[in-house]
């Protein structure tokens, strides 16, 4: 009996907290019919915001896949001074509130900072420009790939690598042919989580982006703007698109991992 009560109450909580709001969002966004739904997506401002969110997230993910794997590699395989400290600080972005992240980047690269002035003169404005959005995304998603690859790298059987090296393969060759295929699922997991997070990121982006429609306004910023100006339908439709994309990625990831027989990481 207590088992049933426990199951009933937790599922009820989940139902009220997660399922109900999602169902209401889905139902209300569809209320005006499919043509209104499409019209709201292809509204020039909404469409641009969605494209900007996807493209900045893609740039971020490409950089993170490479740098995250390299960072995990260096932390697991090499010894260097300060390694322990760096390893402990990898999760710092998870501790820093997103608004604070935005504030940090503005303090460092903003037009009123020394570095920002130099960059601005060189025509490389970061803050209130699209590169600033990518920078903010890179900061908030920094730990994902590293923390996904690191445990797998620790478990890798070095025997295969050594065998390949003995047979005359260069270090790069060994990495590409032997190590990388083993790491690939965990790199994929890390990048997918980072991508999904980037689609919804708001706090850090809103501080660095400058909120210019058709230039630096991302999907979540568009949703917020439409809520504030009373266009609830537009806000809901773009929300549904962002949510569906994010969910689609996570479900695809889950299926791939299951096919691989459990896979690595979470």
């Amino acid at each position, binding site marked *: 009996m207590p088992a049933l009560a*426990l*199951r009933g109450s*937790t*599922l009820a*909580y*989940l139902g009220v*907290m*997660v399922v*109900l*709001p*999602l169902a*209401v*969002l889905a139902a*209300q966004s569809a209320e005006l019919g499919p043509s209104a739904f499409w019209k709201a997506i292809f509204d020039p401002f909404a469409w641009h915001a969605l494209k900007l969110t996807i493209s900045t997230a893609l740039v971020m993910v490409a950089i993170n896949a490479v*740098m995250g794997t390299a*960072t995990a*590699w*260096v932390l697991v395989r*090499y010894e*260097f001074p300060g390694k322990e400290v760096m390893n402990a*600080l990898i*999760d*710092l972005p*998870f*501790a*820093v*509130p*997103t*608004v*604070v*992240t935005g*504030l*940090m*980047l503005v*303090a*460092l690269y903003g037009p009123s*900072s020394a570095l920002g002035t130099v960059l601005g003169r060189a025509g490389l404005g970061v803050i209130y420009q699209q590169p600033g959005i990518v920078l903010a995304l*890179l*900061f908030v998603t*920094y730990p994902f790939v590293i923390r996904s690859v690191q445990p797998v790298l620790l478990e890798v059987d070095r025997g295969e690598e050594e065998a390949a090296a003995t047979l005359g393969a260069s*270090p790069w060759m060994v990495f590409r042919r032997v190590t990388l295929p083993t790491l690939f699922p965990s790199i994929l997991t890390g990048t997918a*989580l980072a991508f999904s997070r980037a689609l*919804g990121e*708001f*706090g850090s982006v809103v*501080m660095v982006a400058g909120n210019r429609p058709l230039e630096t306004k991302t*999907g*979540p910023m568009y*949703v*917020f703007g439409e*809520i504030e100006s009373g266009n*609830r339908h537009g806000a*809901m439709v773009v*929300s549904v698109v*962002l*949510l569906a994309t*994010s969910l689609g990625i*996570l479900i695809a990831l*889950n299926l791939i991992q299951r096919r691989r027989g459990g896979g690595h990481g*979470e």
Partner: protein
Amino acid sequence: MGNDRASAWGRRLLVGLVVGWFAALILVPTLALARTALAGGFRPFWDALMSADARRAFGLTLSITAVATVVNTLFGLAFALVLVRQKFWGRAIADGLVDLPFAVSPIIAGLMLVIVYGPNGWLGRHLEAAGFKVVYSWPGMVLATMFVTIPFVVREVVPVLREFGIDQEEVARTLGAGRWRTFWRVTLPSIRWGLAYGVTLTVARSLGEFGALLVVSGNILGRTQTATLYIHDTIEGFHPEGAYAASVALAGISFVLLIGMELVRKRVEAHEKH
């Protein structure tokens, strides 16, 4: 020989690249913030933090964090037990649902609360008629924070619980321990680090939640501000010192919690090995 030297250089180059990237992306911005916040020395920093507005904002953040953490810790523990120990129809779906808040933008989380509990909302209509105000006040902020932190405790406890198995619990039960006693004395101690990590993440995320609170608090001038809303609202004003000081305090608290838990765990585990 030549190959060895080349790979030693390659190694140095890679370490340099990775450390440089970490420094530029994470370390330097963090230090830049701390420097800006402490530019006038410690005294003005402390005064800015102790201003009436800042204190009120931190008080609100702490009260929201406390409620969300307690509720989601209880839920997380119970739900992890249900997921690991019980077989029922739809378990895989429930398992997926609990992660869903990770895929939802905070802004969308806020929007969903407004359309359900807002004044014209699906449920909010009836609640407001009965005199309950959810959105644009404290309960809405708590709900928003609860929503975004649902997965943390479950996610951390489930793998530990699965690994722990049920053998020890069965032994305890055979020896005559009741359900509660078994839970307190056998199950809870074995999952404590997973639980502690989940709770720490919940607290850190609650302290820093912004987007969902921004939507749920509305754009009322002089609205009830949490610490993050206070930072957002004052940074462009005439006295950004308060925003900078609050930022350093907020990030500092979360970071000390995360690092502190890790240190305590290492120490205790090392102690238990001997």
